[in-house]
């Protein structure tokens, strides 16, 4: 019997379990998937919880319901991987040997990396919206908040879903307008980037949108620490930003077991070939999604597109053929911009987000870098697609390779 072990039962791991179980004979291949957490969270939905658009139960289901029959699901913490002997050790003493390993253990917020962040103000006037708990705590806070300086901060790059804090800013603007207290709230967007986003055309469009909504941007702000006594953010170059409410994207890091296994860089991301998605260092290890160091967004759409490439390549590796499928870094992100509208960006390693239209059979076209209602509905629809099609590894009418069709140069 040959063995595939998948570490992480999030978006990527679950998709791979479904694809591989369908493709590989059960009497030849045993597939095991490991995760410490029994719940599967629909992470794009966290963004809507603080504003009461989604409730806390709208974004969570049991992971087990998405793992296909014939795949062994172990809920336990991973202690470490020993890649040279192809073994995984769990904290309960169990050892798993593998012929192929897929690392899909994601990226997570690490508030402890920033001095003062998890001090006396944590979850009192400081919140994250990247965890279920954090989003719910922020929702409860916002129910009675009467206004002041709301600072949005990105502590470190890269971070998961690079458009999320922008969407958060836009939705906050709408929320305070509808509550009738927008004139009492200063929304300040502080980022280590030099503008609203990384690439020029998207930065321009999103920067103008921030301005239109009277959201102040503080660029090149690299957070050193939080002075929780005086409620100030302090940057490395000594600038201070006072806050009454801090909503922060803390430092993001890969799983702790990656560090314990000596497999990652200083942020616990695994060195991965950006085209084949195979580990740079071990031939029988593939890395999917946020856990890897490939130079594209850490985002669900990337995981989905990459899963198709990884599937082809791991099948090739199993059959001893060369890895011919090449990932292009394709990413596709809906951006909620508030008041029932949305924008969309579509890009890859080589092509920055461009304006134009995005063709999608049956529903589109959507407007790229445009602010439209149909884009918002695309985002709303996507939750259904996620639970019912995407996680189960079913075909979607989306190409894994980016297309230039509809894009304007």
């Amino acid at each position, binding site marked *: 019997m040959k063995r595939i072990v998948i570490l992480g039962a999030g978006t990527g791991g679950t998709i791979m379990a479904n694809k591989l179980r369908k493709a590989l004979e059960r009497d030849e291949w045993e597939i095991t998937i490991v995760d410490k957490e029994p719940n599967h969270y629909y992470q794009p939905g966290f963004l809507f919880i603080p504003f009461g658009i989604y409730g806390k139960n709208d974004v969570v289901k049991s992971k087990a319901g998405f793992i296909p029959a014939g795949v062994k699901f172990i809920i336990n913490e991973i202690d470490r991987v020993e890649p040279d002997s192809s073994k995984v050790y769990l904290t309960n003493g169990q050892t798993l040997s593998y012929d192929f390993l897929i690392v899909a253990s994601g990226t997570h917020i690490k508030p402890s990396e920033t001095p003062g962040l998890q001090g006396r103000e944590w979850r009192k006037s400081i919140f994250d919206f990247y965890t279920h708990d954090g989003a719910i705590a922020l929702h409860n806070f916002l129910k009675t908040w009467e206004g002041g300086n709301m600072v949005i901060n990105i502590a470190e790059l890269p971070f998961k879903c690079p458009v999320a804090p922008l969407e958060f800013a836009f939705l906050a603007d709408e929320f305070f307008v509808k509550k009738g207290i927008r004139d009492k709230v200063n929304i300040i967007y502080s980022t280590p980037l030099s503008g609203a986003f990384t690439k020029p055309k998207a930065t321009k469009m999103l920067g103008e949108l921030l301005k239109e909504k009277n959201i102040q941007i503080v660029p*090149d702000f690299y957070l050193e620490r939080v002075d929780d006594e005086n409620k100030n953010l302090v940057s490395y*170059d000594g600038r201070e930003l006072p806050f009454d409410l801090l909503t922060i994207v803390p430092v993001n890091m890969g799983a702790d077991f990656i560090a314990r296994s000596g497999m990652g860089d200083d*942020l616990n991301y695994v060195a991965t070939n950006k085209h084949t998605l195979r580990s740079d260092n071990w031939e029988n290890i593939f890395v999917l999604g946020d856990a890897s160091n490939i130079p594209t967004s850490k985002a669900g759409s990337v995981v989905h597109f990459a899963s198709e490439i990884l599937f082809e390549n791991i099948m090739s590796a199993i059959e001893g053929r060369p890895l011919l499928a090449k990932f292009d870094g394709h990413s596709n992100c809906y951006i909620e911009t508030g008041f029932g509208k949305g924008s969309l960006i579509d890009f890859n390693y080589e092509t920055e987000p461009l304006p134009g239209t995005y063709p999608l059979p049956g529903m589109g076209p959507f407007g790229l870098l445009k602010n439209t209602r149909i884009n918002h509905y695309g985002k709303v629809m996507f939750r259904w697609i996620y639970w019912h099609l995407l996680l189960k590894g079913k075909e979607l009418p989306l190409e894994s390779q980016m297309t230039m069709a509809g894009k304007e140069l």
Partner: protein
Amino acid sequence: MAEKIYAGKSVSVTDDGYLTDASQWTKEIAAEIAKEEGIDITDKHYAVIDFIREKTLKGEALTIRSIGKSGVVDTKGFYDLFPGAPLKKASRIAGIAKPSSCV
């Protein structure tokens, strides 16, 4: 793209003023670019720049964080040496491409 004269040598630079060919770089050129950035270059600056050149020419992508953990300089010190936008300024002085944060 344009040609520019630094330390009596003609080099090609991008619109943002970054050298397009890292092999054209010399210490003297670095000193003149530093001056344009308002920096009087010292051995401490050179130590950081040597580190950045070495890693970059090996194909490693650097971040402010990874430089801060390198042992050559800490993050605070990096900001003190190249105020404001340390990675951008240091990259320009080091004669390598403008750092691009991936999305």
